Structure formats: C-alpha cells, structure tokens
C-alpha cells in the first residue's frame, strides 16, 4: 500500500505509510502545537504538546511519535485534547521567567504563540520559580544561552548530535533542575552553530549578533539565496526598512535558512549566515572619477557616458573584463551580450574566492562565490579556466590592456601597480569598497544581490531565484542595467527590461538553461540541462 487514508478533525487526508500523524496534519494545513518536533531531527516526544486523541486508543498519544495507519481517526480539536495541551503549556510556563519585555525572542516565541492559541489562562502558580545556573551566558561565538527560558525540548542537543555530530551540548541534571548546556570547559565549536538559535522554539538560545538590534516585528523578509559560497543555501533576508536608527543603520539584520530539501534541508552555515553585513557596510554608493588633483563624485549617467567613450576609443582587442562569480546569471548574461559578443572584449573569470581545503562534507564549499557555475556556463569556461591570482598576473601583466574593467574583485597589489604604471585605464564596477576601487580611474557602483531579483546557479547546477529585499543604495544599479545603459550609448541593440525578461532570453539562447523560466524555479529551483 503506497497511501493510507486518515481522518483528522473530521476531514480525511491521504498520507504516506510510515509518516507521523503530526507531519500529516502539518502537510494538510492543520496546525497541531508542538515544540520538540522538528522535521529535520529525530523524534524526541518530550514536550507533549502535540497530544491528540486517536479513536480506539484509551490514552492521548503524541502526534509526532504516532505513525499513521489506514483508517486512523484523529482529533486534535476536542475539549479533552485542548485541556491536556493547556496543561502541558501551563507546565512549561510555571518555571519560565516570562521576561518577554527583555527577551529577544519575543515576537517569534513558541511560548507566546501557543499561549495565545491554547492558553489564555490566569496563572495558578504561587510558588518560587526554579533558578538555574546560566542567564545570558555565551556558549560559543554566535550563541547566547539562557537556561531559565529553556523548555528542554532537546532540539539543540539533537542538532549537535545528529546533524553536526559534534556533541557539544547535553541536558544536565534531572527533574525540574534539568538544564541544557555545553559540556564543562567546552563551547559550541561547529560551523553550523547558529542553527540552534533558529530551531530553539523559545528564547533560551539567542543570536549574539542579532540580540537587541531590532524587535522582530519590525522585520520584513525576502526569499533569497545565500551568497556565501557555491552551495546556494536557501535563505530569507530579514530586513528593517523603516528604522535606520536601529542596528547602526544596517538595513539587513540577519539571514535565516529557508528549507530546501535539495540543497540545505533546514540549515545554514555560520560563515554564510554572518556574511550579511557586506550588504550595508563599506558600500560604493556613487560613481567616482579620478582626475588630475583628486577623485570627483559624479552621477551614474555621466560615469556611463565616460565609460562608453573609453570603450569606443579603445583599440580592438586591447580591452579586458574581469568577471565576477558574485554576479547573477542575468548580470553575467548582460555582460556576455554586450562586452563579449557585441564589443569583443576579452572576458576572464578570476577565481579569487577559492579557499582550498575549506569545504566540509555537508554544505560548505571551497568556492566562496555563489554563481561560479553560472559564470562558467555563460562564458563557456571549463572547470580549470577560471584564472588564479598568479596566472592573472601572467596574463594581464605580460601585456597590460589599454582598458581594464574589474568587476567586484580586489586585484593583487603588485599586479594593480604594474598595470597602472603601464598606462592601463582601470575601471571598477563593484558593490563594496576595496583597494582596487580606490585606485581605479572610474568607479561604477553596483547593486548587491539583495538589491535586485535574479538567479544563481549553484555548484550542483541548480538554478535558484532570489528576490529584491532592499532598494539599491545611492546610485548603485544592477550590473545588467549598467550594460543596458552602455549598450544604448554604444548603439548596441540590447533590450533588457528587467531580470525576468533577461532570464527568458538567456533560457532561449543558452542550452544549459533551455526550458527554464523564473516561474519554474519556484519553490526549490531547477537543475540545468547537462552541459
């Protein structure tokens, strides 16, 4: 039998044999309260919030630990179940400090949520609460522990046991003095530690980076893809558009993992998660021109006029473009159409983001660019074609180009000095300030991935879409619109009304992407055709 039929609260549903009652209910939009259950972790069955009544079974059963049987009749909505769940919630709250006003979890706390859903009672607890050992105590680089807020669901313990297999955490003591902690003298030392903040249903584990930066109800979210490496873990960008006085003016405050069974399941590495500050910090906001006597800020349109002139006047074959694998497929395709195809510019892909030996057997890749695969496909490069910094020196240094366009990367200092000394005109198109930008003759500010919609192709060839979270800062613009502006000035026939249209054209012209559309990438992305 490959399907069983169960009845939940009077409605019947199909379920896979072996599936839990809780998962079946959740899949069908019936919310059964739960704390310890997490779809990415083994079942613990300790919180007892998901008690349901099953016809023919005298005691209430936990929905997370009960496997569906054909014909099973389940109720989660009658008085008996409601009463039991209320009792369990009351138990979980008696020793909880209820310090919501100073708790960073407030607004996304399971206790608050279920109290409003099934609680709403007046406290009957007239006793002193159990005092535990650690309040606001760091247990690792990113994680803060408050044992008194903990409901001992053991998600964090199971995460370090089953997912990272690093076993830093355990539950110590027993009875109502039980508390989660790292082992004595130890700390969280895995590269996925902040996931335990995400899966903690209460305020026991909070993020040291995010704490007190912003109340979560001010945050908005945009679905996106982590730019930290070539894995392409699915994330939600949490941003705070209207309160720039919070968080020192940063608009983006955190990345949270978004489930994708094909890529990252429910998880995100700490490197990727905490890569977000580049969205707001050290950004290039306006175009700049280096002239006799200094650097002058100028409007983007004037910078594009200048760049178009330079492109027009450079001798054929004497212009080079250093691509960036941080750019989206759409941005890369625009560069390919204009620079490579129409203007015959020599395009090189430097592999500046390679951190050899840094990969693990889970999510982290050596290649720290989110779209290396896309860049290679779109520019017809093989695995070994990306140019290492040493080879870059050999290629560019031997015969310095007349005009060099650098996208985002920071050139090695000696190489930069060498080509500048050789009279090369250096143009920097980028998102963040660096030494190359500071030395460039012309700087064109680009929008980061969070400031535009687009797609990345991950290491496995999965094309994934990200949405605009915040508008570009200052005059910064998506790279594709820079190429569009240049094309107009150079009378090249390019029509790019927006990223969706560019992707449409890309899918029509590039074999690997044939058949894909922005729509077909929802929700979990789609694989390219085999190259």
């Amino acid at each position, binding site marked *: 039998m490959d399907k069983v039929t169960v009845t939940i609260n009077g409605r019947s549903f199909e379920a896979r044999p072996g599936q839990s009652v809780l998962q079946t209910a959740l899949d069908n939009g019936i919310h059964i309260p739960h704390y310890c259950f997490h779809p990415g972790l083994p*079942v613990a*069955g*300790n*919180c*007892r*919030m998901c*008690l349901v009544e099953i016809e023919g079974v005298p*005691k*209430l059963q*936990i929905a997370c*630990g009960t496997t569906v049987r054909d014909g099973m009749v389940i109720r989660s909505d009658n008085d008996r179940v409601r009463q*039991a769940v209320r*009792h*369990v919630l*009351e*138990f*979980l709250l*008696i*020793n909880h400090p209820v310090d919501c006003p100073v708790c960073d979890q407030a607004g996304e706390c399971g206790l608050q949520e279920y109290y409003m859903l099934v609680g709403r009672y007046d406290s*009957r*607890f*007239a*006793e*002193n609460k*159990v005092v535990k050992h650690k309040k606001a105590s760091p247990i690792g680089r990113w994680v803060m522990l408050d044992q008194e807020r903990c*409901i*001992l669901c053991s998600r964090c313990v199971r995460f370090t046991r089953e997912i990272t297999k690093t076993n830093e955490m355990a*539950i110590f*003591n*027993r*009875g*109502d*003095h*039980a508390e989660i902690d790292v082992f004595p003298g130890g700390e969280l030392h895995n590269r996925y530690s902040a996931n335990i903040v995400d899966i903690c249903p209460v305020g026991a584990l909070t993020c040291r980076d995010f704490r007190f930066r912003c109340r979560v109800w001010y945050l908005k979210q945009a679905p996106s893809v982590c730019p930290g490496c070539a894995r392409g873990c699915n994330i939600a960008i949490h941003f705070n558009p209207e309160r720039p006085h919070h968080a020192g003016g940063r608009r983006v405050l955190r990345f949270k993992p978004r489930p994708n069974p094909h890529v990252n399941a429910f998880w995100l590495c700490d490197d990727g998660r905490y890569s977000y500050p580049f969205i707001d910090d050290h950004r290039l906001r306006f175009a700049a021109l280096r002239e006799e006597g200094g650097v002058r800020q100028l409007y983007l349109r004037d910078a594009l006029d200048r760049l178009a002139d330079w492109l027009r006047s450079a001798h054929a074959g004497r212009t080079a473009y250093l691509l960036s694998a941080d750019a989206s497929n759409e941005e890369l395709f625009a560069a390919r159409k204009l620079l490579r195809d129409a203007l015959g510019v020599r395009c090189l892909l430097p592999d500046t983001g390679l951190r050899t030996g840094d990969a693990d057997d889970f999510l982290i890749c050596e290649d720290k660019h989110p779209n290396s695969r896309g860049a290679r496909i779109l520019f017809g490069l093989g695995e070994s074609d990306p140019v290492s910094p040493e080879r870059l020196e050999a290629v560019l240094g031997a015969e310095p180009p007349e005009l060099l366009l650098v996208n985002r990367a920071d050139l090695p200092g000696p190489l930069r000095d060498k080509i500048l000394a050789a009279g090369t005109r250096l143009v920097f198109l980028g998102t963040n300030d660096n030494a190359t930008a500071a030395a460039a003759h012309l700087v064109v500010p680009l929008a980061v991935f969070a400031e535009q919609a687009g797609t990345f192709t991950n290491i496995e060839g999965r094309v994934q879409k990200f949405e605009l979270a915040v508008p570009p800062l200052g005059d910064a613009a998506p790279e594709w619109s820079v190429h569009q502006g240049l094309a107009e000035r150079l009378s090249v026939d390019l029509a790019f009304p927006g990223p969706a249209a560019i992707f449409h054209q890309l899918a029509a012209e590039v074999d690997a992407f044939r058949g894909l559309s922005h729509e077909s990438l929802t929700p979990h992305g789609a694989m390219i055709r085999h190259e």
Partner: protein
Amino acid sequence: MSERILSKRFGLADSHTIGVYEATGGYATARRVLQELTPAQVTDEVKKSNLRGRGGAGFPTGLKWSFIPRDTDRPVYLCVNADESEPGTFKDRHIMEQDPHLLLEGIIISAYAIGCHQAYIYIRGEYIPQIRRLRAAIQEAYGRGCLGRRILGSGFDLEVAVFTGAGAYICGEETALLESLEGKKGYPRLKPPFPAVVGLYGCPTIINNVETLANVPAILEKGGDWFAAVGANRSGGTRLFGVSGHVTRPGVYERPMGYSLKQLIFEDAGGILDGRTLKAVIPGGSSVPVLRADEIDIALDFESVAAAGSMLGSAGVIVMHDGTCMVRALQRLIHFYKDESCGQCSPCREGTGWLLKIINRIIRGDGRPEDVDVMRDVAEGILGNTICPLGDAAALPVISFVTKFRDEFEHFVRHKRSAVLAPVK
C-alpha cells in the same frame, strides 16, 4: 502454611550457595528443560501458568516472550530488572540475598525460551550485599557448568553479567534501564517500538522482574496448570508481599494470589502497631492509589485490587494507622517522585516540582483554599500524558489522597496544622 514457591529456601543455612541449592532440587528443572523441551514448549507452559509480571504492571510473561520476532537474525537479550526502588517494595532483594540460584535457574530457562545467549542483571547500586551474593552465585554457576558454554549437559550457551545501577529510580522503568545499560542517561524511550522488537542495542530484548523469573523453575517443574491453580482469577502463583508501616510484624510474606488483604495485615503481620486503628493502606508500592480502612476487605490479585480502584503493583503493602498525617504522608511520596523525575518530558518534570511546592507550602502553614483543587488538577494534567509511567506514579497517589482524605488537607490549609493530634514522627 500455603504454597511456598519463592521463599522455600529462605532461612535455610547457606541457602545462597549452590551446594544447598542443588541439594534441595535446584537446577534439576533447568537441566531437564534444556535437554527435553523446545523453547516453544517452555513459552507455552509459562503462558498456561498465568504468570504475570511482578515488577508492577502485571503483564502476562508468556505473552511478552512471544513478542520476540521469530526470524530475527540479531541477538536476543534478556534483562533482569533487579532495580527494585519503589518505596514500600523489598521483595527481590530477599530472593537475591537468600536464593540467588533460584533467580539464575529462572534466567536459564527463560533465556532458553526466548533464544537468548546473553543475559544482564540490572541491579540497583545500593544493593551491595545482594550484588556480592549474585556475583558469587554466578561464579559458582559457571564453575558447575550451569552457565557458560554448553550448559547443564545441553548444547545451549548462556552468559550472565551483573550491571549495577547508580541510584536512579527511573532506571527501573524498562526502557530507561536499557538506556542506562547502554551507558547513557536513564531516559525512558518512546514506545512503540517495544523492547521485544527494538531493545538493548536495538536488538530484541525481554525485560523481566527478579520475582517473575524466580517463578519460572517451579512452573516448569510442576506445570503451568498447577501454577495457575495456586493463584486466583487470571493471576497465577504466589506473591512476595512486603508489608511495611504500622504493623506489629513487618516483613516479606509469600502468599497465593487472591489472598485476603485483611488477613495479611491483621493475622500475618500481626495487626496494627501499638493496638491503634488502621487508617489507610497502599497495597502495591507507593505509586498506587491509597485505600481507606473501609476499602481493604479485598483479595490480593491483579483483578480484585483493580476493581477496588487501586493496583496490586509490586505488592508492597504500606500500612498507616490513625496517627498518620495524610498531608505529610503525601508530601513524602511527592518528594520522592519529584526527586526521581528524570526531567525528560514536561508534565512530569514540571508537575512533580509544582506539586511538591504546593504541599510544602501547605505544611509551612501558607496553604491557600484553592490549593487542594490545584493539586488535583495538576496531577490530572500529568496523568496519562507522560512518556513513561513515572508520571502516573506521581499523579495517582495525589489524586487518591486528596480525594479520599480531602478533609485532612482542607483542615491543614484552614488551621495551618495537621488534623491528626500528636502525629507519629
């Protein structure tokens, strides 16, 4: 004198030695069973005997054995639960102390029935003399070919090892026992899967109480029908009743299932201490509902005690006379269960602590009129909603005490002192 199955060697000089054991017929049954019967025949005989688990739950032993998957290619384990920790229960220690070979013979026959070649005796760490006795008896049994390779003239191999617990009540719960035996923290497991299918190290495992297994040699010697006839209803054989509390002669009494509770207290145990009046009896270890003095005219078998609203449990009979303050008595019980709650699941972890705080406050003289109802309601929130039976064990006494002796609790709240004048210390 009634039939003595378990205590027949109690009191004999050197009853714990293999010499005395063999001289009084010991290991003859195991020898015959291993040579003449098939495992299925053994299980059938035990099924016929109506032997039910002596640890407390009273699950039919033969039926439990038959849950071992027939075609398993994994090792099968037998774990002997010798973690006897329930307050009021002190029967298994006497078997291990005075007749350890009876337990070993029971283990041999039972292991043969379920196809087990490695048995573990999980014994509470405080039972130091019993641990020594058991280890010595196991040594003797190995020396005499009763354990080890090709035992008792058969082709059957069986190793037995003693594992000492570290003093946690919860490790007497069968799945917490398995966790502890595996070297982990004693947390009960979710069931299903049941240990007969996924038990120790993930292998099929039977967990039986000491007293349960000590009955097995007699069943195979005299037949399941004989054993069933000794008992009453669907409860075969005898029980070792541990009578404690306010009686003249506390101790362990072996009596047949179905024996009169009144007779046990007033005749065998010599009646109430100091000639006082009986107030209450907990008939099956501290976790079962209490009976008032007017409720004790019952037979001691699983069915009859259940019909009276309590449980036979581990047959630890706790007797309380009229000098007992029921509020303080309940406080002791709650304190125990609160202390022993493992803390894994929410209702038991938080509920037992809450109950203790309320009753401590009542005893301090800070009780509030609503406390009695809150206690009952908290207990009902625990009851049936936990992973293991410890939650029920904590909740049932509370519910029965505050229901049956409500006036005493209300008196304590109102007058800030016990209703019992000059309560016993």
